[in-house]
C-alpha cells in the first residue's frame, strides 16, 4: 500500500464500480446490500416483536418463528433483523469517524511535516503497540456499555492505519512535479487539496474504511459476546452471549438455532466486507492483485 506509482488506464475509471468487481466481490456487495435492506425494513419484515415474548420459550424454527425463539420466547428472526441495525450502525459510524479523522490527520501531518508530523507519528507508534481488545474491554467495563462508547473507543483505536497510509501517499504526492508546478502558479492549500490530493487519496481512504467497518463489526460483536454490549439493544454478539450463558446449552438442541443464526449473520457480513475490501484494494492499487 505504499503506492509508488498509481496510474490508471483512462478506461478503468470510467467504468462503473459494479463491472470492476470480481464474482466474489459482486456476491459480497449483494449480501451487504441485502443486510442493509433487512436492517432498514426490519419492522416490515418481522411479524413478531424483537423485545416481547411471542411464543413458547426455546421453540425450534417453524413457520411461525422462522429462526425459533430464545429463552424468553422472543422471536429470533426479529432479534437478528433488528440486530443488523446495530452491527451496521457500529460498522458505518466507526468507519466514517476513523476514516475521515485518519485521512485528515494523515493529510495534515504528511503535508505540513515538522513538529505536528513527528508528534502524530509518535502517537501512532504508541497506539499501534497497545493491544486494542483489552483496552476496549477496560474502557467499556468502566464507562458502561453503550453503542456510543463502543463506536468512539473503536474509532479512537482504528484511525491510525488510515492515517499512516494516507500520510505516506501525501508525502509522495507533494513531491510530484505537477503539484510543485501548481504551487508555483500560486495554488492555495485548499485548492491543491480539492483538485489534486483528494482525488488521489479518496480510493485509499475508501478501502481503508471498508476494512475499518469489518473490524469494527467484529470488535462490537466480540465485546457484546463478552457481555459488554449495550444491554438495551440486542446485537448479534449479545444474542450469542445470552445463548452461551445458558447452562448446558450444548446438551440440548437449542444451540442449533439460538447460536447458529446470529453466528451465521455475523460471519456473512464480516466475510462479505473482507471480500469487498480485497476487491477494492486491487482496484485502488493494481499491483496488489498481481503478486
Amino acid at each position: 500500500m505504499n503506492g509508488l506509482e498509481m496510474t490508471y488506464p483512462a478506461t478503468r475509471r470510467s467504468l462503473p464500480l459494479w463491472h470492476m468487481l470480481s464474482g466474489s466481490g459482486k456476491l459480497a456487495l449483494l449480501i451487504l446490500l441485502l443486510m442493509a435492506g433487512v436492517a432498514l425494513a426490519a419492522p416490515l419484515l418481522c411479524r413478531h416483536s424483537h423485545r416481547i415474548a411471542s411464543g413458547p420459550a426455546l421453540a425450534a424454527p417453524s413457520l411461525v418463528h422462522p429462526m425459533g425463539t430464545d429463552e424468553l420466547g422472543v422471536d429470533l428472526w426479529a432479534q437478528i433483523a433488528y440486530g443488523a441495525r446495530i452491527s451496521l450502525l457500529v460498522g458505518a459510524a466507526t468507519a466514517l469517524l476513523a476514516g475521515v479523522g485518519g485521512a485528515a490527520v494523515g493529510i495534515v501531518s504528511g503535508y505540513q511535516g515538522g513538529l505536528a508530523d513527528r508528534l502524530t507519528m509518535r502517537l501512532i507508534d504508541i497506539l499501534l503497540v497497545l493491544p486494542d481488545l483489552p483496552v476496549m474491554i477496560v474502557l467499556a467495563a468502566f464507562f458502561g456499555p453503550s453503542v456510543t462508547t463502543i463506536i468512539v473507543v473503536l474509532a479512537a483505536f482504528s484511525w491510525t492505519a488510515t492515517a499512516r497510509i494516507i500520510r505516506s501517499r501525501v508525502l509522495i504526492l507533494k513531491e510530484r512535479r505537477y503539484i510543485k508546478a501548481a504551487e508555483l502558479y500560486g495554488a492555495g492549500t485548499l485548492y491543491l487539496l480539492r483538485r489534486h490530493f483528494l482525488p488521489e487519496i479518496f480510493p485509499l481512504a475508501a478501502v481503508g474504511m471498508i476494512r475499518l467497518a469489518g473490524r469494527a463489526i467484529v470488535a462490537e460483536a466480540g465485546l457484546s459476546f463478552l457481555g459488554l454490549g449495550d444491554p438495551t439493544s440486542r446485537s448479534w454478539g449479545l444474542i450469542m452471549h445470552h445463548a452461551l450463558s445458558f447452562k448446558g446449552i450444548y446438551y440440548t438442541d437449542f444451540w442449533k438455532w439460538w447460536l447458529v443464526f446470529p453466528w451465521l449473520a455475523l460471519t456473512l457480513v464480516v466475510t462479505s466486507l473482507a471480500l469487498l475490501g480485497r476487491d477494492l484494494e486491487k482496484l485502488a492499487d493494481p499491483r496488489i492483485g498481481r503478486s
Partner: protein
Amino acid sequence: MEMKATEQNRRRFFDYLFTLFIVVSLNFALPRLMPGDPFLYLSGDHGEEIARFSTDQIDAYRHQYGLDKPWPAQYAASLFALLRGDLGYSIYYNKEVSTILLNRLPWTLLLVLSAVFFSTVIGCLLGSLSASFRGKALDRLLYPLMIAVAEIPAFLLGLMLLFFLAAGLRLFPLSGAMTHFAGTAGFWHTFVDIAHHAFLPVLTLTMVRTGAMYLLARNAMTTVLARDYVRTARAKGLSTARILARHSLRNAMVPIVTRVFLSLGGLVGGAILVENVFAYPGLGRLMRESVLVHDYPMIQGIFLLVTGAVLSANFLADCIYRRLDPRIGLSTEVQP
C-alpha cells in the same frame, strides 16, 4: 540517520516505557473518572445496620484507603504498590489479584504459545512451498485459501469448530481445560486429557494466525529466491530442499521472527475471546467473569498484565529485528 544500535534500542526502550506509563496512568485514572463516590453507597459490615454513613465515618474510610491524600500522592502510592507486585485485592474472589492471575496465566500461555508455534511452523512451511512452486497448481490452490483463512475472526471460527466438532460430532470436550475429579491416572493420562481439551482452542488460534504467517513467508521467500546466490546454488546442482533450508529460509527469517513477536498483541485479543468460546479457564475467561461481577481491581490487574506482556514482546521484536538485520536504521519503521 547513522546511529548506533544500542542508542536506537535505548530510544525505543523509552518509547515503550512511555507507552507503559500511559497504560498505568489510564489504570489509575479510570476508577477516579467514573461517576459517583465509592463511599456514598457503601454498605455496612456484617451485622451492622447502617442506612447511611456519617461524614466522620466516610472520612475514616477515606483515610483508611488513602483517598484523602492529594492525587499525586495517591498516584505515587499506587506506583510503589505496583513495583512491589501488589495489584490489589479482588472484591469478588476475595483473594490477592496477583495470586489469581498466577493461577490462570499458565492456561493462557499454553494456548498462545502453542498457537504461535504451530502457526509459525505450518505457515512457514506452506509459504516456502508456495514460493518455490510459484504459479503452479499448489500455489494457486493455497494462496486464495490462506487469504480466506486470514480474514476470519478468531471467535467466529472457534464457534464454528465448537458447533461441528464438539457439539455436533462430540469429538472434543465442550468446555474446561481438564476433566474434573479425573484422579491421578498417571502423568501420561493427564497429558492426553489436557491436550484433548486444549486442541480446539489451539486449532482455532493457529488457523487464524497461519494465514498471515503464510502470506509473510511466501513474500519473504519469493524475494530471497530471486536473489543471485540462490541462482548460483541452483546452478551448482543443489537440491530444492537444500536450497530452501540452507540458503533461503535463513535469510527469509528476519520478517518472520519479527512478525511472530509483533503478532502477540492481536493473538492475545483473539485468545481472550476464544477462551470464552470454549470456556477455557485462562485470563480471558477470568476477564469476562470479572466484568460480569464488576470486579474492578481484577479487571485492572488482567489489563496491566496483558498490556505489559504485549509491550515487552513488541520491544523484543524491535531488538531482534535490529540484531538480525543491521541495515535497518531508526528511520525505517517496523511494519506490524
